[in-house]
Structure formats: structure tokens, C-alpha cells
């Protein structure tokens, strides 16, 4: 199986879907002639031209809303947010119109758009460019959100998102764009709502999503080597819909859970997961559910502190040891 980058995997997904369906087009700032701010769309404009790959002015509200309106008539726009942080400029369009139009019309319409872009910290850019709003999206019934942690999932989830008839946010990660994973040449999709057991284990469940899944996997290796702890690592992949079954099965097996995410803790995704575990697996728990989140402050600029602010192996290991104590 060829090793390709997370960036290349997303590009393949976009290209394949553009080829498959004439209604799929890509809109965003610098996506066409500039080849993408993070080069995710590199070469697509050369190949598919102005109709399918569309450069927008810096007007997130207008082009997000335009994509939503166009999707009502059957166009399937993939909207790139240069940073998912910029979706806040288009809040009304994405969080009122994309999410609620179907409901408010009593099901007379649907909004098949994808909103994709990097949603991560750890890049030394300060608080305005480091949002991880998957919790915010998941708090809006009508929206779906996925957080691929590796190239295989990024491609498979992106293809599912584009084919989905509801609005789907795909939260990417700039720190993963250059990382490589094995990705098959044959066509495949990764369904929404299916978690991935990255590593089986018996002592504790580390439940996580996005880049934190990769960090958790490394932490689990260290835990095995240095502490003889056999941790299971569950990568949620999809936040809404959520694979509750895989979470609960794991906790019922290990009796302990540490939840790891880059979200800030208050009302983060893991607040919901934590509730789920205590509500549906209360009698299976041998310890309180522990959480490792971004340290609860606006994202700091200073690099060494930011690296500490977002979850790292050290903080995960510490939390696992506490949970097992």
C-alpha cells in the first residue's frame, strides 16, 4: 500500500468526488490559482478549471451562505475554511442556515455541503487561529462533524462527507498535513458514526479524536513499555454521529476511561462522552472518568507553553496513572 500524506489523501478524495459527480465544486480563499493556503487543493484548478475550483474573496459569510443556497438546488459545494477559526465570521450562515433550514421547513429541503479546513492549535499562531470547534458544531442538531486523525480516515471520511446529504464539517489538522500513512489505491469510504480501535488493550480505555488520537497512541506505547499498562485507544473519528457502542464496549472491558481531546474542557466533546459513560456504564467503572483537554485558557502564543497547553504524551500518561492509582 502506498504511503501518502494526510494532505494528499484529502486531495485525492476531492479529485475523485469531482470526477464522480459534476455537482461537486470547491470554494474558498486561495483554493484555485494559489493552490491552497496549505496546498491541499494543489493542482486541482489546473486540472478542473474555474467552474469546479473557485477562488473567493475574503468573505466567509458570503461564500458560506452562497454555498448553502446553491446546495438547496443540488450543487454540492465543498467549502474550504483556510482555518476553521474563520468559520466564526460566517457563524449565522453555518450555525443557523446550514443547520436549521431543513428542520424549519419541516424537511422540505436539505443542505448537502461540506465545510472543511484545519481546526487545531499547536502552531504558534495565538488564540484567533487555533480553534477546535467540533464541540460547537456537534451542539447544533442538523450538523455533522468528523475529525480524521490520519490519512486513511481523512480520505475515507471526506468522500463520505461529500456524498452525505446533510451538512458535514471535516476538521483537519495542519500538523498532520505532512504526515504519511498507508492508503490503498482502490476506492473506499469511511462511514460516519464508526469509531476505530487503534490499539486493543485491557487495563484502561483512552478515548480520543483528531490528532490527539495519534498522541494517545504514542502515550499508550510508553505506558506499555515503562509502566506495563495495556491501554486501549479508541479514535472516535466521527463526533456527530457518535459511535457510542464502541466507547461503551471498551469501558465495559477495561472499567476505566481517560478522555483526551484538544478542545477546551468546558462543554468540550469529552464532557458529553463522560456523561455517556457514567450514565450507561456506571456499574462498570472502577474509577472516575479522567479528562485531558487543552488547558482552559485562550490559546497562548508562546510555543513552549502552547505545547504544554494542548494534550501531549506526558499529560496523558500522568492522567492514566492517576486513573489507575
Amino acid at each position, binding site marked *: 500500500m502506498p504511503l501518502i500524506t494526510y494532505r494528499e489523501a484529502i486531495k485525492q478524495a476531492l479529485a475523485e468526488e469531482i470526477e464522480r459527480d459534476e455537482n461537486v465544486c470547491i470554494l474558498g480563499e486561495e483554493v484555485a490559482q494559489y493552490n491552497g493556503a496549505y496546498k491541499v487543493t494543489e493542482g486541482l484548478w489546473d486540472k478542473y478549471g474555474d467552474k469546479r475550483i473557485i477562488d473567493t474573496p475574503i468573505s466567509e459569510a458570503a461564500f458560506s451562505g452562497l454555498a448553502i443556497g446553491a446546495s438547496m438546488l443540488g*450543487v454540492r459545494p465543498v467549502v474550504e475554511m483556510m482555518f476553521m477559526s474563520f468559520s466564526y465570521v460566517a457563524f449565522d450562515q453555518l450555525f443557523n442556515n446550514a443547520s436549521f433550514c431543513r428542520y424549519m421547513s419541516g424537511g422540505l429541503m436539505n443542505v448537502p455541503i461540506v465545510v472543511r479546513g484545519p481546526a487545531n492549535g499547536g502552531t504558534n499562531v495565538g488564540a484567533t487561529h487555533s480553534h477546535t470547534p467540533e464541540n460547537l458544531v456537534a451542539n447544533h442538531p442538523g450538523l455533522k462533524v468528523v475529525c480524521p486523525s490520519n490519512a486513511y480516515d481523512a480520505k475515507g471520511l471526506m468522500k463520505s462527507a461529500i456524498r452525505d446529504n446533510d451538512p458535514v464539517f471535516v476538521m483537519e489538522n495542519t500538523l498532520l498535513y505532512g504526515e504519511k500513512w498507508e492508503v490503498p489505491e482502490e476506492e473506499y469510504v469511511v462511514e460516519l458514526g464508526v469509531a476505530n480501535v487503534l490499539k486493543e488493550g485491557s487495563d484502561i480505555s483512552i478515548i480520543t479524536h483528531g490528532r490527539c488520537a495519534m498522541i494517545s497512541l504514542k502515550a499508550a506505547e510508553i505506558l506499555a513499555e515503562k509502566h506495563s499498562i495495556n491501554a486501549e485507544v479508541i479514535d472516535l473519528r466521527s463526533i456527530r454521529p457518535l459511535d457510542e457502542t464502541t466507547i461503551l464496549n471498551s469501558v465495559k472491558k477495561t472499567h476505566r476511561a481517560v478522555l483526551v481531546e484538544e478542545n477546551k474542557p468546558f462543554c468540550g466533546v469529552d464532557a458529553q462522552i463522560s456523561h455517556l459513560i457514567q450514565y450507561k456504564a456506571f456499574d462498570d467503572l472502577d474509577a472516575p472518568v479522567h479528562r485531558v483537554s487543552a488547558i482552559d485558557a485562550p490559546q497562548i502564543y508562546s510555543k513552549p507553553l502552547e505545547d504544554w497547553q494542548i494534550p501531549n504524551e506526558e499529560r496523558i500518561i500522568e492522567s492514566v496513572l492517576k486513573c489507575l492509582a
Partner: protein
Amino acid sequence: MSSAASTKKAVRKTSKKRAYETSEINAQLSKEEKIELYRTIVGIRRFEERSLQAYNQGKIGGFLHLYIGQEAVATGIVSLMEENDHIITAYRDHGHALAVGMNMNECMAELFGKYTGCSKGKGGSMHYFAPDKGFWGGHGIVAGQTPLGAGLAFALKYKGLKGCAVCFLGDGAVNQGSFMETLNLVSLWGIPVVFVIENNGYSMGTSLKRSSAEESLAKRGEAFGIKWDTCEGHDVFEVREKANEAMTYARDELKPFLLEIRTYRYRGHSVADANHEKYRTKEEIETYKKNKDPINVLRKKLIADKTLTEASAKEIDQEKKVEADASAKFAEESPYPPKSELTNDVYWTVDNDTDQQLKGTYFFND
């Protein structure tokens, strides 16, 4: 067009008395079509008067933004819609809904929050939709519909269909950033959308003078290289002529157009607006009603050209009153949506998951 001089010219041009009913787009109307315009305008008025009564009886909750006084605008423009045309508006949407042919029963039932409503009681007054009739809402947030309107028109161009989208907005919406962003985008990309500013003089309780630095709202189009015009909204024939020019231009040239239509609402911003006779004078309201009421203006013209008689006009009026009363009865007698409806129509994939293929949890109720 350039600068202030052209603005004055445009204003002067529209204030000149013209016999719009004899212009080409109106002269070709059959007698039946003219009667239909009258029936629509009267129907909107009677429907809304009946809804106000129900609101005051406590049958309707939330907001009720009445269109009374502005009826000729939606009626005139909808009458010009061609096969591939679409419309979208904000929260003062009852007139547009009835004009595209939604029936009073489904509209009234929606106000009552009933299951038989056009949105099954899930949207309410501000959120009427009829995609099968080219009507895409019904949107609650000021100017939030403007990029959506651009998107409808974008889709037409993308699919190679000849048509246009008409996106209605109020004079308050012109100061929202999303609208200004959208103006730039549609001009830049050549999108066949007509923005119709229904300028009723007040953004809620704040007069135009107190909210917009430049009183000619359509003139803002110049900053974006968008063709613009203004007209009066009490005469359905004037609305039709000006809107026809704008819509034809959008369809033929694949370009946007900005049309400001001066109109007036008799009632408050919403029924809950208790101050609407404080931020404007009673006299101002009465003067408009007396001289420019869209029903009276049209009735006089149709009686003058013998399309209607006093008696036949009265008959239409009576018929619409009866229809509105019947819709209130229908709404009253209709059931509320069952509790199971709360989580339907949220996700297309869930609603259409007939063979239970979907994975994962979609709703998080304990």
C-alpha cells in the same frame, strides 16, 4: 452610472408620473391575470388581518411580522417569475408565501404551531418554505438570507439554467456585513440575482435617516459595479415594470441588479411592537393609507379599465375574508405535531434511513 448626479436623476426619474399599467409588460396582462393580481393582494391583506385577530386571541405565539401595506411588492414580483426563477426573503414572509401559491390553510396552521402547517409547526411565522414553488423561505435573521439568495442564483448559472433568483430584504438589512459581502461576490462572479430592498422606512423602530448614512440605499450598488434602480411599491404595475427590467437583465446578462422599492408597513415591526405610533406619527400612517394603499390603488385602476366593477371587487374581498376565516378554523381544529416529530427533519440521512443502515448515535437524549 456615476456619483450623486446620477442618483438624483434616478430619483427624479422614478418620481415622475408614468402610466405603468400601459407599459409593455403590463399591457400584455389578460383580464384574468389582472384579476389574479388583485385577488393575491387582497388575499394577503385578509389573511394577515385574520392572523392578527388570532394573535390577539392568544392563538398564535412568538412573533408576527405583518406585511400589510407592502402587498404589491411581493405580488408584482412573483407574478413575473419564470420556470427557473426562485425567490427568498426574510421574516416578513407571509405575502411572498401566499403570492407563490401557498394556501392559507397551511400558512395559518403554521402560525398556530400545528402539524398541518407548511413546516409541520417547526418554523412558525418567520420560516415558511415552498421549494416546489421556487420559494426558499422565510429566514429569521436580518440579511441572513442574502448570501443564500446569491447561492440559488449561483446554482442556476452552475447548472446552465436560464433564470434568476430574487432575494428580498428590508431597509434594515442593508447595513449587515453579510449583505455587503454578498454584493461584492455577486458582482465579481456575475451571478443572476436581483436584490429587492423593500424599503418601508423603518428598521424596527429606527427610521432610515437614523440608520443609514446615505438615504439612497440602491445607490450602494455603484460601489460594487452593480446596476440599480428605485421605484414605488404601492402600485403593482410600477413594481412589475421595474422588477421585470431587473429580472430580465439578470437572466439575460448573468449579472446582479439592486432594486430599491419604497413601500410602507401599516403595522409595527412585529405585532409586539407597541411603539410603532411613537417613532412615527399616526398622520404619516394615515396619509399613506389614504393615498397609496396598494389595494385601493389597484382597485381604482381595475375599475377604471373595466376589469372589475365595485361589485366584483367586493365579491373578491368577501371571498378572501371567508377563505381567511376558514383557514383560522382549519388551524384551530388541526392537531399539534406529535412529540415524536421533535427529532424528525433534523438530518436527511436519518429521515431516509429506511433500511436502518446508518451507523452511530444522532440524538443525545437520555
